[in-house]
């Protein structure tokens, strides 16, 4: 008996595959294992592209932030040194120091808070200057002094207030307590009324492109 089989190309391959590989089959009769390598290579390729883009952006942003922070830091040093110079100018006219500090604080950028202490014998005057762009609720306290405490209350932005103390001993601890937006901050300055003449405390913060640089400094002139 004779059997006639008409086979097209696909049929030929299918028949060969069936004879060749038992139990495994693809659409056209070839193994699908090798195709997984091609799919994996495409996934790896996509991962490489994404990785290259992410690494490049991150490095550039970090470097720019570093540069901007460096410049902000230099500017902070500039402002601090100029405040110290103002204290030096105030030695010629201590009362004028109030105007100099207020005027300069309005000129420079950033948020500033200062304490300006002028000592005259056993009496000393303390001025609190608020340039924090926000109102504060502040209290002044001094050990071994009379009175020992002054409640200044609310001090608005770009305002300053002065109180006078009488020193009962040479060494005094002056404390400024203030509240800003719910948080309490305390700053303490040691004073020697027998030696110090003018004392300045400065809290300066400059913000540049989301980065904040801040410094606190005490200057004493004797």
């Amino acid at each position, binding site marked *: 008996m004779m059997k006639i089989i008409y086979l097209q190309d696909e049929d*030929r391959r299918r028949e060969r595959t069936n004879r060749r590989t038992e139990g495994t089959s693809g659409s056209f009769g070839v193994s699908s294992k090798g195709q997984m390598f091609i799919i994996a*290579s495409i996934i790896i390729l996509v991962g490489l592209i994404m990785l290259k883009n992410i690494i490049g952006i991150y490095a550039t942003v970090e470097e720019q932030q570093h540069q901007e922070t460096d410049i902000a830091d230099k500017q902070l040093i500039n402002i601090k040194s100029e405040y110290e110079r*103002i204290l030096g100018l105030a030695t010629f006219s201590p009362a004028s120091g109030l105007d100099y500090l207020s005027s300069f604080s309005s000129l420079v950028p950033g948020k500033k808070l200062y304490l300006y202490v002028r000592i005259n014998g056993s009496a000393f005057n303390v001025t609190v200057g608020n340039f924090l762009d926000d109102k504060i609720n502040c209290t002044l306290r001094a050990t071994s002094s009379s009175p020992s405490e002054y409640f200044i209350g609310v001090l608005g932005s770009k305002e300053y207030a002065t109180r006078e103390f009488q020193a009962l001993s040479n060494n005094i601890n002056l404390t400024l307590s203030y509240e800003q937006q719910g948080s309490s901050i305390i700053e303490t300055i040691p004073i020697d009324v027998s030696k110090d003449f003018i004392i300045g405390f400065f809290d300066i913060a400059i913000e540049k492109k989301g980065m904040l640089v801040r410094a606190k400094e005490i200057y004493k002139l004797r």
Partner: protein
Amino acid sequence: MSKIILPTKGMRVERENQTKKIIFFQDEDRRRNLGFSSKGYIYTLEVMIAISIILISAAFIFGKPPVKPEMELSIIKQQGFNAIEYLDQKDLLRQLNDAELENQLSSLLSSNIKLRVNNNTGLPNQTVIAVDYYISGYKGTYLGKRIRLFLWEEI
């Protein structure tokens, strides 16, 4: 009874009788009969294609030099600030007027960087960087002023 039909294109003839089977093979079948298998060949070929895709793509992706980031503006700003700081340390910054300051600063900065002090009129139509430096006083006199330096790169 047996019957023979001559094979044509796409047709394979099997002729069977009780004792003998004659099978005509095409090229692939002939090779199979001679011991060749295409199974490993195709598998290897696909792996080689996958490796080639990765290598060629990696060569294209990482072959180009990295694009230079826009750092020039920050660097120019830093150079300007350093120049002003230097003049302040030399005690020149507070004595000189704006024109003299421009001459001094120009000599400190690169020749391709142009500048102007405290004067923002007639600036070029491109990115201009401003650097601020503050002065409180000089020799017992309160000044309370800002020196603003405008910098740009000459194209």
